[in-house]
């Protein structure tokens, strides 16, 4: 593949693909989920897209879908192509592209523990970062991080000596600790 025009011609010739050209070296492709592996093989073989930069996952709870984005870079034509697919949220399954790109294993493992999406065929779906975590997948939109923190952790008590001296002279802090927004003792 010589340059970007040839690539765009190749891609627009395929059916079911929606191609958008971004700024100078960016292309965006939207494909149906079942056609992604074939597209990746085509890009790797014909257009030199040897480098899988990242696989990102975006959670769209209103559409009940996960959007998986595969970012590929071609060393030959200096273009970055992002392939977007949508996967249904409820079973949350998809195929692994480990056989095409081996760095995919890291990203698929990461997405599995953060979002709960299972990739069939990926070599290692064990937890990597959250090995001692026993809550829900934390990056989902319904997981409330602040609520979890308020349930499981305590905040520092705030009564240092110098504050006692100030209070003796008539001063003090404006908002008492019990009235602060995150205080566990609020309203008692």
């Amino acid at each position, binding site marked *: 593949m010589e340059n970007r025009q040839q690539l765009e011609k190749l891609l627009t010739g395929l059916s079911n693909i929606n191609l958008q050209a971004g700024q100078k070296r960016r292309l965006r492709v939207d494909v149906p989920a079942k056609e992604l592996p074939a597209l990746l093989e085509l890009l790797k073989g014909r257009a030199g897209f040897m480098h899988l930069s990242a696989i990102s996952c975006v959670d769209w709870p209103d559409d009940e879908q996960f959007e998986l984005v595969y970012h590929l870079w071609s060393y030959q034509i200096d273009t970055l192509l992002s392939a977007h697919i949508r996967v249904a949220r409820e079973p949350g399954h998809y195929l692994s592209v480990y056989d095409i790109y081996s760095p995919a294993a890291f990203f698929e493992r990461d997405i599995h523990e953060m979002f709960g999406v299972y990739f069939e065929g990926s*070599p*290692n*779906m*064990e937890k990597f970062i*959250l*090995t*001692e*975590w*026993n*809550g829900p997948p*934390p990056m989902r939109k319904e*997981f409330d*991080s*602040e609520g*979890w*923190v308020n349930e*499981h*952790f*305590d*905040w*520092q008590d705030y009564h240092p000596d110098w504050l006692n001296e100030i209070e003796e002279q008539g001063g003090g802090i404006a908002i008492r600790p019990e009235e602060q927004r995150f205080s566990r003792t609020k309203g008692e």
Partner: protein
Amino acid sequence: MTDFPVKVQNRSSGNIFTNVFDELIRFARSRSLFMLHYCTGCGAIELPPAMTSRFDMERLGIQPMVTPRQADILLITGYVSVKTLKRIILTYEQMGSPKYVIGICSCTVNGGMYWQSYATAKKLNDYMPVDLYIAGCMPRPEAVISGLQQLMDKIKDGQANSWEDYYRRYDYYLGNQQRLFGDDWQTPTDIIGEAHHYGLFDEGTEGAHTELLKLHQHPLEPLGMTLNAHKIKQD
């Protein structure tokens, strides 16, 4: 365990010579501290400048040491994620008394910048006693050295005794640890036995949480992951 308990020295004893001797011991101890070289978080990037030639920490007698068994100070440099907190507690219990904990950076004080994060511990004081906090994000090497000098003064005056608090109120600390890590949390160190050994067994050492610990204690296995776990599952 030993048959006879070794009592912690009574500081207000009347004999002048033991007082002078104690003071000499405390002075010597404060001038030759070994710092555990465990970089637990962001603040660790300001530790090499503090240790090396520009803000030299060795002139105060403080040297890095790699094993907890021979270290005096545990520097918690930065935020503590839940996974690291387990290792820090294990390390703390492995250190020999007297030992000192310094919490560097604001994240150990009250959660710092990551207060909304599900993965960091907010209040380090809940899980182990802390002698000194050095606030900042991150504190300059000069601030770290100034904090270490304050610790040295505290040791010399005999006020850096938070390690005794761990034995005296072990039930409280264990309760917080169990709340975070689950009821089956256990460490290889026998804290209650050591409390007896040091003569620091108090009414806060045993309680409901240590009873729970006794129920769940079992012989040690390595933590978590074996190398071939994922291969075994596929078979």
